[in-house]
């Protein structure tokens, strides 16, 4: 007589699949906004949020909270008298807290550990990639001066944060 106890048939994929992040909050600068998921442009740049009040998560990269470097970008500057999400990003200090929340309501907290300014054409490996086994979330917005010909700001401000343990 055989008794089958086929637990694996009913089993769903047991891996905790991380869903896309939906909301970004930075309390100190009153940011509480929706996160769009973006890809790259044809020219190979990370895409930007469609709504300037939103921010955008680079969906081909790391999920916020996972090991690696997750990247979220937001606009800087006003349009039709409306603010962009990251207008005040430059006021953040080391130690400030940033949180993301996904569809399941999982909230992940991060702490600002470094602030850097890059040229807009600089190599971005440091921002998009890490292999130290830790979880990072890096926030990008524009900085520097506006170049009318390039229709681009000269610099990018990057806030480096580490997942809060």
């Amino acid at each position, binding site marked *: 007589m*055989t*008794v*089958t*106890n*086929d*637990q*694996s*048939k009913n*089993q769903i*994929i*047991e*891996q*905790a*699949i991380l869903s896309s992040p939906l909301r970004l909050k930075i309390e100190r600068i009153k940011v509480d906004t929706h996160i769009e998921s*973006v890809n*790259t442009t044809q*020219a*190979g*740049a*990370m*895409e930007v*949020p469609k709504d300037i009040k939103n921010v*955008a998560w*680079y969906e*081909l*990269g*790391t*999920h916020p909270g*996972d090991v*690696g470097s997750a990247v979220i*970008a*937001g*606009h*800087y*500057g*006003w*349009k039709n*008298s409306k603010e*962009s999400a*990251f207008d005040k990003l430059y006021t953040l200090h080391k130690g400030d807290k940033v949180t993301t929340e996904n569809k399941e309501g999982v909230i992940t907290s991060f702490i600002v550990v470094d602030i850097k300014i890059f040229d*807009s*054409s*600089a*190599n*971005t*490996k440091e*921002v*998009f*990639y890490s*292999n130290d*086994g830790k979880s990072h979330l890096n926030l*990008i*917005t*524009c900085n520097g001066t*506006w170049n*009318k010909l390039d*229709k*681009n*700001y000269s610099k*990018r401000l990057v806030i480096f944060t580490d997942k809060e343990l």
Partner: protein
Amino acid sequence: MIKINKKSLGVIFSISILSTLSGSINASAASTPDLSFASTYGILSSTYTNTSVTTINGDVGFTTPPATAPLGTHTNYGSGAPYATAGTNQGSALSALNLENCTFNFAAGPINLSTDTTHGTAGTYSPGVYCSTGAMDVAGPLTLSGNGTYIFRPVGALTSTAGATITLTGANACNIFWTPTQATTLAANTTFFGTIIDNAGITIGANTTLSGRALAFGGTVTTDTNTITAPTCTTPVVAPVITPSMGGIYSMPWVTPSIHITKIATPSSLPFGPGTVTYNYVVTNPGTIPMSKITMRDDKCSNIIFASGDSNSDSKLDITESWNYSCTTTLSQTTTNIVTVTGESINGLTATDRATATVIVGVSVITVPNNSTTTTVFPSFPNTGLPPTTNNYPLVIISLILLTSLSTIKISKLHYLKK
């Protein structure tokens, strides 16, 4: 598909992956790896060189034989089975040993283990993982004191000085490991303990005794009038005695055993190409009867290590326990892997569960061919700046303009401040 096998009760339970669980479990101490088929070998080598009267109490493995055969008892001699499997097991054991975290790091350079005082009392060591960036030399007396696992891990050679003696107080040769990255040379008249794993080669000097194993499956072992005794380290567990109830036939209750496993890969994706992934497994017992002989098999990760969870140290997965395992591997392409766990209950029935994970590798790598090499190019910065207009300057730029030319800014341009 699970089959439940009814077995006779006269079964000797052996601890396989659980060989590290004999005795008390301290999740923070190093663990002795399972040597499997390599455990019976006193010498494991590609070429075994010997022209002397040498005694090996244990199996002797080689593809190129010694000119003079050693004395002693060897069930397996040469390259017949399980020689090849023992070689693989040597590799797995070395991987497991190398994953143990260093509990002490010596200063840079070669280390004289007998005279060093930076680790503690000169010449005395307690269980732990001792790591150096240079060669290690047992240059004199050495005492290994305390029951537990010792791992000596020099990035460099391992040597002893003539006449050096290792003494064990409370330690056991079964739990002592030497894993140098360069060759091992033990000098003459040394008394040595433990398992040396060293594919760069192991040379044992005249009249030296080794209570342990010289494992160099990919290299040469050379002996000279030595005695090597492989320790017997497996602990058979006798099946529990079931006494029949008074006046009747004892019968086992028909309880269906149960087991459950979950798996999480960290990271869950490697967007920029190949990298290291660690799978963490949690095995629980949702049934009503403790489970033994827990075996784990992952089809894409071969070195599953038990981390913690046997709270009462009885080597059984009790219904209140969660056993944690991990396995680390390097993935170079998108990989789906399946881990299978099997356990057996006291009534001889088995239960199995599986968990699947997929790690996506290299989705967003943008590579630029450059002659014969490819360069990974990361996405360039997003263009997140909005062109400043005369009516819509963000406050920071307004402030700069205010500071530099106060008199030229009209009040009307500051209307946004009313918000």
